[in-house]
Each structure stands twice: as C-alpha cells, then as structure tokens.
C-alpha cells in the first residue's frame, strides 16, 4: 500500500500480470485518502488520482487479514499465486501469521517480496519511514542542494518508486530462478539499502579520499551547465556543454561564434573557472526566447538542452504526445482523464492501460466466487461478519 509497493506491482500489472490488491476496512490504501476533492464527495476513496495512477491494471478485493477467516482466504489466494508483494512495516506479516513460512506451507514455491524501509533484521529494523525518509537515510539528500545552502530533498518521495522498480525486477529475477529450479524464495528489498546504490560513486569516492563529496547544485564536475531563465518568468531551459566542439556549437547557436576563441572560455578548464560569466552570457540569450525555442535551437546545433518542464507543459509536450505516452482511462466513479502509459515499452507485446484503477472492494465477488469458489451465501456471511467490505472505515486516514 501507499506508493512503494503499488508502484512496483504496477510495473508487473502493466506487463500483463494479474495483480490482486488486498485491502480491508481498517487497513486500506492511504493513497485513496489523498484526493483533494473535499469531504463531501461521494465515494471519494475511489477518486484519488494518486491512488488511481498507481493501481491501474490491477484488481482489488477486501479481506481483513486480522480475522481468522480473512487470513485463511488470503492463504487460499496465495496458493493460486506466483508472487506476493508486501510493504508493511517489518513486523506486520509475522503478527498476521502470514510470514514466508506460512505462505510456503500452502504454496511451496511462492515468491514473497517484502519491502520494509530498514529491512527485516538489524538494530533499526523496527523504525518506520516513508520515501522521503529513505532518501535522507541513504545519503542522497546530503549531496543534493544549492551550493550555498544545506541539504535538499528530492521533489518526490523518491525512496518509494525506486524500491518499487527494484522489487519488480527482483520478482522477475526470482521467477527466472523458479522456472529453472522450482524453488521460490523470500526476497527482501530494504528501501534504505535499495537507494544507496544510486549514489554508489560517492561511497567509493569517500573510500578513496575521505571526503563526503561536493554539493554541486545544477553544476557538474567537468561540464558547464545549468538552468537558464527564458522570456517568461520561471520558465527555464537546461543546457549542458562539455567538449570544445559542443561549446563551439553553443557559441554558434548564440550567434556569437567569436566566444569560442575568447580566452575566458577557450578550453574546458577555463570554462569551468569562468562558469558564472558564461552563465550570464547564456542567460541573456535565453531571456529572449521561450524554453522550447531555446531547446530546439540548441539541439539543432548539437548542444544538449531541454526545457525544464512544469507539469502542465509535460502533459502537452510534443514528444510525449507523439509517442502516445498519455492514455485515456474511464472509471465508473472518477470519470475520464489521461494518465501516463506503461514505461516498459515492448515492441512486440506493447502494454497499455487495460483495466481501470480498481474501486474499493470492486472485485470481491470475482475473487471470492470465481477464484476461491465460495457460494453466494458464504460471500454474504463474510460481508456480514466484516471480513470483507464495500466501504472503507473513513476514520483510518482522517
């Protein structure tokens, strides 16, 4: 639930895996509550875009895993499954008696993927963390920032989708092993550990020179680069120039070919040393253009550049439109809108948004009757007993 696990199972669901999401009235996905629609909207828990984007192509059922009947039915679902993914706190599946050994007793080759923030073992395994905490723990925040300021967060809860993408890949690797040997396993993605690799070169750098590394802001160790404001305030274009030939191309695009011979900028060392002066010259040029005009002119000349896209521009962007990135989805409660399509782009088996995001408990009947073979009377009894539900307990995430 929340973002890490769902972002990972979304990748698998996009590829055609039949993903069944399990919630319950007292333990339902918090993302359903982040809807910004006001408290009076009918069935608002089905309308949160944050939830809906991350759970498309999945099915949803409810089972209260804290009840004996709910647990037993969950294990019957496990017996029919290849992979179970959970991102509860480290101790929850043990408390629910749904640990790897419990799952293995009903499905000997099951692959369980657990995604606790700190891992299942170690002195800090009882800590709790969200995706922002994960990047703080992992060291990324300490090397992010304006050079004249302290550490800075990512714009997103980066630890979540990072762990999700690793979990999806690890599940596929485990499937590969299972197909050769018949053996399942309990994969553990500690979200903190899964993020450290993304700054692995800083760890090795520290091993080499004992320095934790310089905070470069938008700059780079050898290239001259930055974001430059365009004709409209707070509209920016990113430009990055390395070798002499790229710099000559930049000077050409700026209409100032003589700059390439200017002693201040004649070689990579001089350019790096006189970065601020160069920034002023480039910035004066971009101020006369839109971000798209600037990026197109620079790319046409062979200079790496791109508009710094704000979200509305991203959704209008000509490149993503031409690639058919946005897909329209229709949903019984939430209506019709565009969401991002699958990002694993397969040429022979292209993926799409096939199944709209599931409403709370939408597939209860399919799961209970068609997959588990329960009678209508048993299904009604489960609902009467609160093992399944049609509406979440609204107090849980208030």
């Amino acid at each position, binding site marked *: 639930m929340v973002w890490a696990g769902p972002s990972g199972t979304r990748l698998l669901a996009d590829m055609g895996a039949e993903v069944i999401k399990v919630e319950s009235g007292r333990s339902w996905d918090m993302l359903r509550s982040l809807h910004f629609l006001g408290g009076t909207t009918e069935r608002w828990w089905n309308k949160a875009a944050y939830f809906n984007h991350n759970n498309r192509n999945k099915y949803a059922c409810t089972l209260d895993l804290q009840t004996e009947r709910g647990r037993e039915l969950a294990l019957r679902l496990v017996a029919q499954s290849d992979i179970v993914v959970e991102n509860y706190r480290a101790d929850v599946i043990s408390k629910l008696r749904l640990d790897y050994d419990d799952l293995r007793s009903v499905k000997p080759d099951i692959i369980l993927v657990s995604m606790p923030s700190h891992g299942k073992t170690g002195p800090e395994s009882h800590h*709790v963390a969200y995706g922002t905490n994960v990047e703080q723990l992992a060291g990324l925040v300490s090397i992010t920032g304006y050079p004249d300021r302290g550490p800075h967060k990512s*714009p997103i809860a980066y630890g979540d989708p990072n762990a999700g993408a690793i979990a999806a890949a690890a599940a596929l690797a485990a499937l590969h092993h299972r197909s050769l040997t018949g053996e399942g396993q309990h994969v553990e993605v500690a979200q903190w550990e899964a*993020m450290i690799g993304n700054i692995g070169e800083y760890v090795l750098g520290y091993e080499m*020179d004992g320095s934790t590394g310089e905070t470069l802001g938008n700059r780079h160790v050898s290239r001259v680069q930055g974001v430059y404001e365009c004709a409209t305030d707070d509209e920016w274009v990113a430009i990055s120039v390395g070798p002499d030939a790229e710099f000559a191309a930049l000077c050409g695009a700026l209409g100032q070919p003589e700059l390439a011979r200017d002693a201040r900028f004649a070689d990579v060392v001089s350019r790096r040393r006189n970065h601020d002066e160069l920034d002023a010259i480039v910035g004066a040029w971009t101020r006369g253009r839109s971000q798209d005009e600037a990026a197109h002119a620079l790319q046409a000349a062979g200079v790496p550049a791109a508009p*710094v*896209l704000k979200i509305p521009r991203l959704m209008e962007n000509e490149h993503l439109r031409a*690639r058919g990135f946005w897909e329209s989805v229709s949903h019984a409660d939430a209506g019709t809108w565009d969401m991002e399509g699958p990002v694993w782009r397969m040429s022979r088996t292209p993926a799409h948004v096939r199944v709209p995001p599931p409403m709370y408990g939408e597939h209860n009947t399919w799961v209970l009757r068609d997959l588990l073979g329960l009678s209508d009377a048993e299904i009604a009894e489960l609902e009467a007993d609160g093992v399944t539900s049609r509406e979440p307990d609204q107090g849980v*995430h208030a």
Partner: protein
Amino acid sequence: MTAPLHGVRVLDLTSGVAGPWCTKLLADYGCEVIKVERPGTGDPSRGHGRFPDGIPHRERSALFLWLNTSKRSVTLDVATSSGRALLLRLAARCDAVVHDYRPSDAARLGLTHHAFAAVNPRVVTTSVTAFGQSGPYAGWRATNIVSYAAGGQHYLSGDADREPLQNGGYQAEYQAGTWSFGATLAALWDARRTGIGQQAEVAGMEVQASILEIYLPDYAYRKSLALTTRRGNFSSAVVGIYPAADGYIGIHCMPKNWPQLLDAMDAQWMATDERFADNRARLRNDDELSAQFFIWAGGVTRREAYAHAARARAPISPVNTVADLLKSEHLNARSFFREIDHPAAGTMRYPGSPARMPATPPEPHRAPLLGEHTLEVLGELGLSARDICVLSAAGVL
C-alpha cells in the same frame, strides 16, 4: 547457491551511467555481461573520478568501478565493419543486448534490434536513452541534467524563489537504468516462453514523468495547479527537512502517524491544541506547526531525534552523509557493504545489492580492466590468436 540470473548472457553496448547501471544490476544478479568498450580510452566514466590521491587513472575511477562490477570488458571499434561483424557474432550468442544509442546512431552503426534479431531471433534488445527511439526528440542529445529537466522532476525541485535544482549525482540516469533492468527481465521472461525476442525500450523522460508522486496525477485529474510548484524542503510542515543541533533531520508524518510524532517530540500538549486538532486544522496552521518542529529539531541531535523516533515508531530520520552510511551500526549489522579488491584501485567497501535474494544471493566482483577479457571472449567465438593479432594491429580492438 548461485545468483538468480546465472546462465543469462548479455552484450553491453553502453557507457556513462544509465546503461552501465542497468547492466551492472544484471551482472551482479548473475548475468554474464560482456561490456564492449572503445579501444584506447574505454568507457568515458573511466576518466570521471573520483580517484585515489586525486590522480586520474582509467582503472581507478570511482564512477567506473562502481557501475561496472561483475562484467567482462572487451575492446572493439563498433564503427568498423570488422568490429561490427564480431559484435553480431557475439549478439548471436547472447540472450540480451543493452544499448544506449540514439536511433540515428544505431542506424548508422547498423546496430538496431532488427540487426540483432536477424542473427538471433530470441534476442532481447534493451534500449536505454533519455528520449527513446521515436518521437521528435529521439535525435536529441542528453546529459543527466537535460534528461532531468525534460522528465518533470527538475522544475518541482528547489525553492520557489530560486532556480529549479537538480538532484545530487546522476539520478535521472540511475532511474533510467533501474527501470531498464526490470524491462530487460520482463522481455527475457517473455522470450523464454515464446522463443521470440523483442525490443524493450526505456526513455528516461517517461520514467521520470511516471513517478511524479501525487503531483502529476493530481494535475492530470483535477487540472489544478495547486501541486505543480516548487516547495523547497517542505511539502508541508509535516513533510520536510529541519535543522537539528548537529545537522539535519527529516520528518514525514501522515495523519495516522500524528500521535507517534507527538510522542517522539514529547509534545502531547499539541494533541489538545485546536490549531492542530486534525489534519485539516494542521494544514490551515502550517506555519505555526512548522515553527514547533523548528524549535524541537534545533534542540536535539540527529541521533537523539532518531532514538525518539524509534521509541515512538515515528517517521523521523537523520539526513545521513556518506560517512554516516559507512559507519552505520544497522547497515553493518546487516553486512550491507561488501569489500571488493581491485588490482589497480585496491580494496574498498562497495554498497550491497538493492534486493536481497537468500536462495540466490548476488555475488558482485570487481570491475574489469580495459579490454581485460578481449582475448578470452574472442577466443570463445572461435577466433585464433593469429586472427586476434590481426584485428589488434588494425586498431579494431
């Protein structure tokens, strides 16, 4: 016990960060990865650094050593027809080829999925670039900052009254690499079942756009601009980074964590303060709430805050430096770092693999020297020592 992807062979035509990160993950998890490098200089990341003692050396670059563990290195000039022919012979023996060519470069070099599939119908070709293999930007040049700008994360990062801020290191590239790792495995899974390969294409711009947290989904659905601006270190008072007595700490408190947060701060009085009575009230009084956190954080060390967080089970964490990671009692108790020796760079502690697979533990080993395995790999193709000398003299290797 062997790593899970043992027996899968991958031809690696990438350099820099995104592609090599993808193939490093494949290699650490057991694939046999053959990295093709440019004769003479090799992967540009060999020049990137950092270096021991600050002295450049192509076998001692931190970025290269990190991103190329567990691979074999072959030097081959793919722009020559002799080099290309050898490459296609290698591709015929591989399960996957990973490249980071723009479509124009792939076409010029004759190294497209079409060309690989002609010699190996089962082959998966993973392409990892900033802009993908089609569309108006497919020919665009990219670096990390350019990719980061186009993907939508850059604009959202930084202070509202300053320029957008890039994430530390090479995060746009790492994202493209991580997602390519999974895409490759998904395509391999399909190829194993069907006997037919395909191209698995990952565009960094799309990966980034697909993980814009609540921000893109909210705009896409409601068309509200409310969540499309830069908000510095604070999404709100309860999700932000605060200065502590000896560094910084991060707080991330969702409504259900509120009691635990107050417990950690020993601030139960706030539970009965009407300004903070429920989530809506807290958002309305965000500045006042923020002030409380500044005061509390300023009076505790990172370690103290983390201990309080542990006791109360509140989502508070220290902003760790790289030095903190290597010293971490928790990570070391879990044996996260792995000492790897390298003949030129010496022994260093490398971060462990991102997913633990107890039945099939990955066993990363050191990055290769430039061209270290050229003889071995070409020998496996059946080339004689004499042929290899001819290729070397001609500058192909």
